[in-house]
C-alpha cells in the first residue's frame, strides 16, 4: 500500500521533470541555452591520442628589460581549443620554469574560459587579480598582455581576449587600462 503510493509519487515526479524540461527546452525562435556558448571551438575536433602533448609559448616578464619573454611549455593535446587555452592560462598562472617573473598576483586563479564564434576568448579570473594587483601602469600592462599575447599567439581561433573578474566586467585592474572591450594582442611588447 505504502509502496504503491511511493511508486505513484515517483512517477509523478518523473512526469513533472519531463514537464519542466518541455517548458525550458522548447522554443521555435532563436534560443540561447544557459550552457556556455562555445559552438565552434568547443566542438572543434582535435586529433586527441591519449597522452598526446602540444607545445605552447607563454609570455613572462624578465628582470633585464621591459619586454615579455617567451617560454615553451608542453600541455595535453586535449579534445578542444578551449581545454588547451585553459591549460595554457593555468600554466601561465603557475609561473615560469626558467626564472622569468610572473606578472600575476600569486593567489590568482582561472575560473572560466570560453571562446565565442567570433574568436573572442572570455577569460574569467578570481578577484585576487584585482585585489592583490600592484596597480602601477607597468604592472597592469604586463598582466594584461601576458594573458592576451599568450592566448592569441598560440590559438588561431582566438583573435581577441576579454578579461572578466569573478564572472563580471570590471573597469580596470589598477586604474589605467579599461577592461570593457576585448584586447587584440600587442606583439610589440615581446622581446625580439
Amino acid at each position, binding site marked *: 500500500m505504502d509502496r504503491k503510493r511511493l511508486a505513484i509519487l515517483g512517477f509523478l515526479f518523473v512526469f513533472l521533470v519531463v514537464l519542466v524540461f518541455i517548458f525550458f527546452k522548447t522554443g521555435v525562435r532563436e534560443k540561447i541555452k544557459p550552457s556556455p556558448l562555445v559552438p565552434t571551438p568547443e566542438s572543434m575536433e582535435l586529433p586527441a591520442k591519449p597522452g598526446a602533448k602540444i607545445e605552447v609559448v607563454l609570455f613572462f616578464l624578465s628582470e633585464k628589460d*621591459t619586454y615579455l619573454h617567451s617560454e615553451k611549455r608542453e600541455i595535453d593535446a586535449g579534445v578542444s581549443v578551449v581545454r588547451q587555452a585553459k591549460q595554457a592560462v593555468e600554466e601561465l598562472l603557475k609561473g615560469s620554469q626558467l626564472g622569468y617573473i610572473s606578472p600575476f598576483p600569486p593567489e590568482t586563479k582561472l575560473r572560466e574560459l570560453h571562446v*565565442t564564434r567570433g574568436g573572442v576568448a572570455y577569460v574569467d579570473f578570481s578577484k585576487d587579480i584585482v585585489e592583490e594587483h600592484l596597480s602601477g601602469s607597468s604592472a597592469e600592462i604586463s598582466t594584461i598582455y601576458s594573458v592576451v599575447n599568450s592566448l592569441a599567439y598560440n590559438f588561431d581561433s582566438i583573435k581577441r581576449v576579454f578579461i572578466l573578474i569573478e*564572472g563580471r566586467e570590471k573597469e580596470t585592474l589598477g586604474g589605467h587600462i579599461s577592461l570593457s572591450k576585448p584586447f587584440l594582442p600587442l606583439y610589440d611588447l615581446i622581446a625580439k
Partner: protein
Amino acid sequence: MNKELLSQKKKSVLIGGIALFLLLSNFSLPQSQSFLNISVKDHPKLSRIIVESSFPLSFEIEKRPSDVRIIIRTDTSFLIQKEPFESSVIRSFGWRRGRDYYILTFNIIPGRFSYDYFTLDNPPQLIIDLSPLSEKKEELLPEPTIVPPLSRTERPSAPSREIKTVVIDPGHGGLWPGAMGKSGTLEKDITLAISLKLAAVIQRNLALRVVLTRDKDVDVSLENRAAIANNNKADIFISIHANSSYQKDARGPETYFLSLEATDEEARKLAYLENNPTQPEEGIAGGNQDEIQMILWDMAQTAYLKQSSELAESIQNELNLLLRTRNRGIRQAPFTVLAGVACAAVLVEVAFLSNPREERRLLNEDFQNDAAKAIYDGLVSYLERNS
C-alpha cells in the same frame, strides 16, 4: 512476477527520489530570492545589455526594428532590478509578465544594427551587444591609396594651432589609490603633489592657461578626465603617475603615448586622419561631461599621435637627465585616459613606487620639484619645436 513488480516499484521510487533531488536543487534556490538584474552600458562602437539572473535560465531573443525582446519562459517570479542607464542606442527598458513567461523589452533608436550575444555562467548572464551599422563612416574613409601622396613640406602635418591651454591630470584619487610603495606611499598622493608643482611652474613662467582634472583627493573617472581636457579645449594633456612593476629592480621614468590596436580598419582610419587632421571645433557643449558625448571622441587621440610622440620624447629626455637612469624610454600602451583626448597627450610615469629607493625620492619635496621642473622643461622644448 511479484519480485519483478517489486523491483519496478523500487526503480520508480529511485527515479522519483532523483527527480525530487533535481527539483529541490533546481528550484528551492529561486524561491528564496529570484532576481533579474538589468544593466545597459555604452562602449565605443557598441551598446551592451547585460541580464544577470540568480540562476541559469533559457532565453529567446527577438530583434525587431524598434526593439530587442528577451523572452524568458518560467513560472518563477522575479524581482527585476534595473540599474539607471543612459545610452546612445537603447532608449528605454520595460517588462511584462505573462502566466508562464517574462518579456523584457529594450526600445532602440531607429537605424541598422548588427547584434551579437553570448552567455556567461557564473553568475549567469546574458549579454547582447548592439553595434550601429553606419554607412556614413565608410563614405568618410576613402581608400588611403586614392589620396595623392604629398611631399613632406606640403603635408598638412600638425594641426598647427596656437597652444593656449595645458591640462594636467593627477592620476587616480579618492577611492582609487593606484600603486602603493613598500612603506605605504600612495600613488594618488604623489601624482597630486607633482601635478600641483607642475601647474605652478607653468603658470609662473609661461602665458598658458593651466587646468587640473583634480586639485584634491577625489575620484574622477578616466572618461571624465578626457572630457575635462576636451571641454577646456586643451592643446596639451599631461597625465602624471608613479609606476610599479613585478620586476624587483624596475626603476626610472617612462613616458607613454597611446597605442592603437592595429586592426586593418583602424590602420586605415589612422592613415586617413593623419592626412586630414581635425580640430575640436566646439569642444563639448556647456561642460557636458557625460559618457555619450565621450563616445564621439573615442578616436580623438588618433589624429594627434605624431604630436603626442614628440611631446613624450621631449619630456622623457628631461626626465632621463634628472633621474640619470638607463632609458626605459618612450612607450606605447592603450591608456584609457589618453584615448579620448583631442590634442597632444602623454602619460608620465615619474619613477617606481615599487622600488624602495625611488619611493623615498618620490616622497621628497625637492625631488617632486625637480620632477615638475623636468616635465616643464620637456614641455618648453616641445613648444619651441612647434611654434
